[in-house]
């Protein structure tokens, strides 16, 4: 089970990429909301990164997905180490 990243980090990512981002836990066939940052947008929800049962969803018109995923990987890794 992967550890969640902090709300502080989610808010930083939201500001820096201008996105709505939230983290969820996969439970059976469904995803369960943990917390998120950034204003709600009427846009598709995109699963950008999964680590174990933890998943990160984003709503945005456009954003640098590769860079965001890279940051998420580091943050999740850090949260496991800590």
């Amino acid at each position, binding site marked *: 089970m992967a550890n969640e990243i902090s709300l502080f980090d989610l808010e930083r990512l939201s500001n820096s990429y201008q996105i709505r981002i*939230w*983290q*969820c836990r996969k*439970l*059976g*066939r*469904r*995803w*369960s*909301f*943990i917390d*998120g940052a950034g204003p*709600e947008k*009427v*846009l*598709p*929800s995109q*699963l950008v990164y999964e680590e174990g049962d933890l*998943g990160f*969803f984003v709503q945005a*018109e456009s954003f640098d997905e590769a860079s965001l995923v890279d940051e998420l990987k580091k943050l999740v890794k850090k949260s496991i180490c800590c």
Partner: protein
Amino acid sequence: MHLVNENIPASAWINKVIKPEEYEHYLVDGKDFIDDEKIWQQIEASQEPSLERVREILAKSYAIKTLDPEELATLIKVKEPAVWQEIFEMAARIKHKIYDNRIITFAPVYCSNHCVNNCLYCGFRSDNTHEKRERLNMEQIKAEAEAIAGRIGHKRVIAVFGEHPDSDADYIADAIKSIYSVSVKTRKGHSEIRRVNINAAPLCVDDLRKLHEVGIGTYQVFQETYHHATYGKLHPANTIKGNYQWRLYVHHRAYAAGIDDVAIGCLFGLYDWRFDLMGLLYHAIELEQRFGVGPHTISFPRLTPASNSPLFELADQQKYFVSDEDFKKIVALLRLAVPYTGLIITAREKKEVRDDVLPVGCTQTDASTMIGIGGYAKNAGCQNIDEQQFMLGDTRSLEELIYDLAQRGVITSFCTAGYRCGRTGDQIMDLLKKGQEKHFCKLNAILTYREWLDDFASEKTRKAGEEVIRKEIEEVKKQTPSIFSKKLYDLTMSYYERISNGERDLFI
């Protein structure tokens, strides 16, 4: 000595299940949040309000703000039919503002009618020796899910369990997993249950965690009646259900266990409907204030005859039975009092009643309903009072319901998108309160309706449904790009095309 099964004395089992430390810390000076005296004072203190005052309250509700109990008590006092008409119209507007013109459908799955309780109004009560007792095994539960998903086409169920050591949290968790495991090939694609809600006895936090871990949808427990003395009279003290507060605080324990969505309700007709309506509002406010998330749905079933239930013989009980006229008021007032919450009307009610009250605020309903244990796989076409908790008033099939709704321009939605991307709990509550959720609902209703029409509809219903879809897409197009971005519109249309070609479970 009363036994819950051949080995376990009832008192020992009750002491093992109920954990006072899991609700007593919520009490204030030893009291729960339902103050019977205060509620009656609020109801009786209110005078018939002026039209101006009524309109002030309606405006607050239209701004998607939960009403104060005094405001609800004020609306209860309205007498003028013309003012009630205004209330019904506002309830319909609020429903449309938050949920659009859609109805979500589901099926109840009765998994076990073994029950240790002895509620005077219920066919499942332990003293009812006429009731045939059954508890489905996992293969039988899968067979139910296959029939519901594969033959009828529902995408969400509420699994129902009596209160008994044989239907404990492990059994319920296995049932959830079994239902989720089913996938059935259909005409053009495949069908499965995407959301498993649970109606079961109040559980402790550890047991609720077990349900959370296997992906429970909404956890639904009704208080039945909020009036302490009536509750005590109808639920004998030597039964586990006799503990009012263990039941009242089960949603608190569910949140503590990590469950996102909880549902409350009460059985109207057990006590004065005005009091129980106030009780529901107090319950919603308590959850909102303590956890920041109110109830996901509210149910408001009316008492209907149950097999060999002594309550129906009691002359003084009949004064509490709810007329159709008052029932419509209950629905509209709930819509106004807790505007963001889903309202569920079930097939207990007759078709005429459902047709009348759906527009004033209901968001979910059931169809092709079987409430006998294992009823879907048996495909029992008729009701059998000795196998049911109560009698159904509307036995329309899902196909018939969808056709009837389509004739009224209502789209039937099978959307479970929130669960596919974690729009749950306080996230969805926030969207509902801002009136944004309906935009997602609108698009997902179109996509899931397309799935159902392709997989299950008769030619006649398909034609009626396609007319509804045509109008919905037209509306979405008009709202692009003011509400829906071009990107979102294009994505929806590409999903629509892919679904038409047999792909399934695509969502926004």
